[in-house]
């Protein structure tokens, strides 16, 4: 690929406008080889729908308690049963999708902006930029990541926004590494030299030439880290950080049901945990599928 990009005319690496037909055929070929990716895409659509429409389609108010129906096992009326306060768990699980999804999405967007840009700059400029960015990454990597996230939330304050920030910071090194490597191989590619010769500023080359070219690989990275971001945010709220009860959120719902597990009311923790697991599983599979599509060499 570098071989080709060396001699390619400016910006030509962003595909010589392949007919959408061939992209589609390629996607179908990859999907056929790995049907699991298709499944994960369906799951993703369901999750996205729940996040968008959740509050409008659930049968019960997720916050309304009903003292006459506490700790009920799953039934036709309450698909996932009810909790200690008689709240409908199915409604809470569905409504929680939006918050978990938004936390993950926001943190991934934030780290994409920070880590992606720092990584491109490090790979493109090299030298001191590279050294400073590398040092910051190394320092973050010197911590067990979840522990660092705990520390950051504790320091910045116990809010949802800070959970987003903490999750973004611990993912920073991953984005830097990918963006740096991809920008580095292209720093002297033909199209970059051409752009430089025609008088573009370095900053403009970074944003207009390098960034679009590494976008596909960054998209894969985003989808791979989405699962981890959800897991991390849920873990933080499980130990009581960020999201406050009675807000429905998967991690905190599992924590609420934890005490009931030993007395046998499994459904309170089980269904939110299952939803969490499916969401993470879906993003991991989707990421693997996307990677196969974008970067066939790394297919396992």
């Amino acid at each position, binding site marked *: 690929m570098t071989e080709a990009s060396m001699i390619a005319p400016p910006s030509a690496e962003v595909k010589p406008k392949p007919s959408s037909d061939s992209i589609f055929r390629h996607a179908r070929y990859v999907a056929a080889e790995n049907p699991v990716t298709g499944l994960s895409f369906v799951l993703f659509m369901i999750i996205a729908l729940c996040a968008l429409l959740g509050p409008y389609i659930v049968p019960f108010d997720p916050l309304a308690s009903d003292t006459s129906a506490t700790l009920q096992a799953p039934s036709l009326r309450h698909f996932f049963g009810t909790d200690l306060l008689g709240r409908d768990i199915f409604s809470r699980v569905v409504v929680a999708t939006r918050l978990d999804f938004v936390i993950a999405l926001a943190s991934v967007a934030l780290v994409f902006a920070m880590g992606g840009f720092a990584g491109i700059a490090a790979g493109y400029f090299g030298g001191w930029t590279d050294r400073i960015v590398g040092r910051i990454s190394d320092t973050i990597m*010197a911590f067990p990541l979840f522990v660092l996230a705990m520390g950051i939330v504790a320091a910045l304050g116990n809010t949802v926004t800070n959970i987003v920030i903490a999750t973004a910071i611990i993912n920073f090194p991953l984005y830097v590494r990918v963006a740096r490597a991809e920008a580095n191989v292209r720093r002297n590619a033909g199209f970059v030299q051409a752009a430089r010769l025609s008088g573009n500023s370095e900053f403009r080359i970074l944003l207009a030439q390098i960034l679009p070219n590494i976008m596909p690989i960054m998209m894969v990275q985003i989808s791979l880290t989405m699962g981890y971001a959800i897991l991390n945010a849920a873990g933080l709220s499980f130990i009581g950080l960020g999201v406050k009860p009675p807000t429905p959120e998967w991690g905190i719902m599992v924590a609420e049901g934890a005490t009931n597990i030993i007395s046998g009311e499994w459904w309170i923790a089980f269904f939110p945990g299952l939803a969490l697991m499916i969401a993470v599983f879906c993003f991991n599979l989707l990421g693997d599928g996307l990677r196969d599509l974008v970067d066939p060499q790394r297919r396992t």
Partner: protein
Amino acid sequence: MLLTIAKRLVTVIPTLIGVIIVTFLLTRVLPGDPAVYFAGPAATPQSVAEIRKSLGLDRSLPDQFIRYVNDLAHGNFGNSLSTGQPVASEITSRLPASAELTFFGLFLAIGIAVPLGILAAVKQGSWVDHLCRIVATAGVSLPVFFTGLLLVYLFYFELGWSPAPIGRLDAFATAPKDITGFYLIDSLITGNFETFRAALSQLILPAFTLGIFSLAPITRMTRASMLAVLASDFVRTARASGLSGRTVILTYAFRNAMLPVVTTLGMVFSFLLGANVLVEKVFAWPGIGSYAVEALLQSDFAPVQGFVLTMAVLYVALNLMIDMLYTVIDPRVRLEA
């Protein structure tokens, strides 16, 4: 060999400095004034100023940093706000509980993952291989606190095989004499098998929870690197020379395949130390993770800071050990250095 180790030790220094700076900054960017917090609700501006002075908060940031490093050098992590106890002693007394859990979990994971990965690579496409793939994909998607709760439900409530998740020992057993702080080892040394059994039955479920979590990366890596090694020329030569399959796989391929696996252990430790916190919460395990969580919820920052620092230093030390292990396994690393 010694030179390699010395060189590697030197690279730890900037990392440690980075870690200390970050943990220091974490407290100083705290929103709100710690002095006001310490002084309590009925404080006058005068007493707040006094406390600020006694805490050294009126000094410049570099000055405060030097004091912080000086305190650390003397093993002073500060005092907990809620209990008034020094953080350092609390962490030292709780650390063995966390360490025992983490290491036992890791050994369980390696014990399952490495053979599974080897089998999957040797018998590519068989049911073992498919099992391996399922484990590798499902393992990374499982929230560790969720797996822990499922295991508690299954083995405590449904089957009644394991004791209630209430810490390291049940109410009837007495703790063994404190030698290493690891209950399993201490009870064996003192020959107290009753306690050993009790401690093991408490430990097995949380350790297994941690194990499942780290199973995925180890299995995936073992399989991938075994596959690569098995396809290499020297393995073909060994086979062609008529060596038995066992010798080829265990003596020739396995040792070479272990290198990338050992490297992955660094990442696995990062996960493990984080997951440890969640598992400790689920199983009411009296380790440093649950100590930090309790402190976090009370906005008691000194224990959290001590905890983050301890974990980071531990993690740096573990990575160092992994690198040492690397030189033991692979003589080439020694030569390169």
